[in-house]
């Protein structure tokens, strides 16, 4: 895959090992070779992301894949934390959720999500979805250059 944003990390916040395995598999299947950084629970992600001094390299993130229902902290609260950080305020956040509840969908968009995607049930559908996401966010969409903005 010709990659506009090669090298920039993809941050995945996902507590389910199976889902994370499928996500990684699907991204690799889609020829995405960006580094994938995973936070395995909401709490650790929140600690890392709520303080701008930590993990300054995160500003280079291509996009964030965010699970909504995680033990401890809800995806929407993490989203809020991103948007407060100057270096992550503009980074695309794609919510990946089991829930097709309209309330969840509305809430995520109003908190600044860039896309809301319901996790498909079958492996094949999942692969197709991830491929579409990678194509769009890595090859089609122009992402803001946070380094340039801040320097």
């Amino acid at each position, binding site marked *: 895959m010709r990659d506009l944003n090669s090298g920039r990390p993809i941050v995945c916040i996902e507590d389910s090992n199976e889902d994370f395995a499928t996500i990684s598999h699907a991204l690799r299947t889609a020829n995405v070779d960006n580094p994938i950084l995973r936070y395995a629970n909401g709490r650790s992600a929140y600690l890392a992301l709520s303080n701008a001094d930590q993990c300054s390299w995160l500003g280079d993130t291509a996009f964030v894949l965010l699970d909504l229902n995680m033990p401890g902290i809800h995806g929407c609260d993490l989203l809020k934390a991103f948007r407060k950080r100057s270096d992550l305020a503009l980074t695309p956040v794609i919510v990946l959720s089991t829930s097709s*509840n309209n309330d969840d969908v509305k809430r995520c968009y109003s908190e600044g999500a860039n896309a809301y995607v319901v996790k498909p*049930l079958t*492996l094949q559908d999942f692969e197709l979805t991830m491929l579409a996401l990678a194509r769009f966010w890595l090859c089609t969409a122009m992402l803001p250059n946070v380094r340039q903005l801040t320097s």
Partner: protein
Amino acid sequence: MIKRAPFYVTGVSKVSTGNDPGLLQTPTSSNATQSRASDNIPLGECDNEQVHIPGAIQPHGVLLVVTLVDLRIIQASENCEALLRITHADIIGSFLSSVFGETNTTNIIENLSHQDRGNGSCHVLRLMVFDVAYDLFAHKSGDAIILEVEKVPFNGVSPLIDLYSGVRLMITKLQTTKTLLSFFDLVVSQIRDFTGFERVMVYKFLEDGSGHVIAEAKLASLGTYLDLHYPASDIPAPARRLFALSWLRHIPDVAYTPVRLMPELSPLTGEPVDMSAALLRSVSVIHRQYLKNMGTSSTMVMPLMKDGGLWGLISCIHHSGPRHLAHETRMAAEFLTHTLSLMMASKEDAEDLSYREHTKAALFNMMHSLTEEPNLHKGLGNIHAQHNVKEFIECGGAAVVTGDHITRLGNAPSERSVADLVSWLQSDTQVVFATDRLSQLYEPAKDFLDLGSGLLAIRLSKHRSDFIMWFRPEQATTVKWAGDPAKPVNLLETDRDIRLRPRGSFALWQQTVSGRSRPWSDFEIKAATDLKWGIVDVILSRTEKIERLNQELTDANSELNSFAYAASHDLKEPLRGITHLTGFLERSRENTLDGQGRSQLATIVRLTKRMDDLIDSLLHYAHIGRPDQAILECDLDKILDEALLTLQTRITESRALIQRPRPLPSVVGDSSRISEVLTNLISNAIKYNNKQECRVEIGWKEGNPTVFYVRDNGIGIADADREAIFQIFRRLHGRDEFGGGSGAGLTIARKVVQRHGGSMWIESVIDEGSTFWFTLSQHGSP
């Protein structure tokens, strides 16, 4: 038969104005004293007659007025000579001691000093004058002593000890009587035995001042007065006040000739002497005429007091001739009557008390059942319950009214009449309405006088027509009056004046009183009011309870929502894992898996897919229960168009024939959910069809509310299954027969309909087809 009133009437007051002279008011003129001179009284002066200053006495004793300062006799009755053998002219100016001796005088003064002024004349001593026994009575009146010397009658003197034990026995007997009436029955017969009068009666004053004979004992040969009513004017207010003041009034001989007191006016004050407490006081001419007209020869009257007021009289009458009771017997009678007053009050209170106790218990029980059964009709209007509103207050019938719902108990007017009465009462804002003559206020009540001449109603709500009512029937349609109550006096025109005489006829005069019930007592009105506040209390606490339950329900619902939400995530996540792993397995073992292995993996995927559908349906169903419908007016015809568009593929595949006989009307509701109802019903109709040509008809019928239907020519539904098909995930057929499906479609359809306030039902014939009917609003709404 001639009935005669037996009562002590001391004057005629003007009936219409009741402008009574005050008891202690001094006379404005001396005209009052002239009354003795004539049997007729000028009409213009009857109001002014001072019943307590008659200026004359009865002839069975002598009255002397003595100064307090020097005990000198200043006035004397003209009959001194006949009784004391000394003329009144001679006695006036004498010192008391010179007439009665030093010892007697000292005794008189001694006794007098112990006397409480309020007790009236007191017996001070008995003395013999020329072998005749005399009783002396004395009391103070201003700066004077009024001394009365009464000849002791030969008959009727019992030794005091006999009188005492007799009275004691009576009181013991009286204490054991149960009701007030049996109490009085005993009282009159005992007093008659004891005094020897030919007739003894208890006469009770009613609210309007008229009297009612409630008990009587008499010689068998005499006609009865029992139950007779006497107009208020027979015993006018000033006379009633005098009765309340003295404990006993005795006229031994009604036909007596009054004896004047000389001089007429007191030398001390220049005014007539106040003789209101004098035993010998002469009664008014009119009263004597009244008694004579009744054929009464002798009377003795004692007041029955309750709570400081005159409640009634015990009246003793002799018809055959004079009857003079000795002081001892009178005193015993006086004492007995006083005791009776006290006992009577407690008897009457006890009767009242048992009613109060009953009412209290009934109120408590009704409130209790109302807490259990908040419906007023069931809680308070159950005729079979031990306590209901009818038993609460003494009445003929009762009614519980809430809006259009009327429950009648006992002998209440018709439902129609009660409903009309409610609309009339509506205009009145009072909490309690009570009348014993409803038809005078409300014309239509004339139609049910026998049921509701009296009405007691409580209003339960300011804004709603909720009432509790009690009805009392017309009562005592006939009142027996002793003579025409409208004509207590006769007018006589003479040469110079219009003169007044008490009525000569006491012929029974019956008055028909219509449209009146027994009046509601203050206590009953209070009890009704208590019930009102009790009901309000229960309703309020119930409202609070409903609010609390609502809150709990909201909490439970929101919990259920989060449960459904969590379930969707927590159940779906492992499902997805299974599916994905199956996918990985299938790919990585592609070459090593045989046909059976591949088919098994495919089955795993299919089953997880199915489970995913089920979870979705469940979530959807839970979602419909949420109170966030978008209720708007919408065009059902357009909604149907959209539903058919959604089902396009299935319709084409099944080649179903969709019919719409006429356009559907507009409805008020949540269009997306109504669309779901149609989609589910139509797809159901197509799915469960085994006919060559599948036909589905969507239509409606005007009504209140409008009824819609989806009719098919499918397989039909057995009667026994008509409820089962609405149960979630309940299937009547094999999973893959008739195209499968999650089994929630009809459940969801019915739930949507119910959320709109409507209902859904089925008509079906096996193998011919089914019709699903539904409404989208409550019965009665358009």
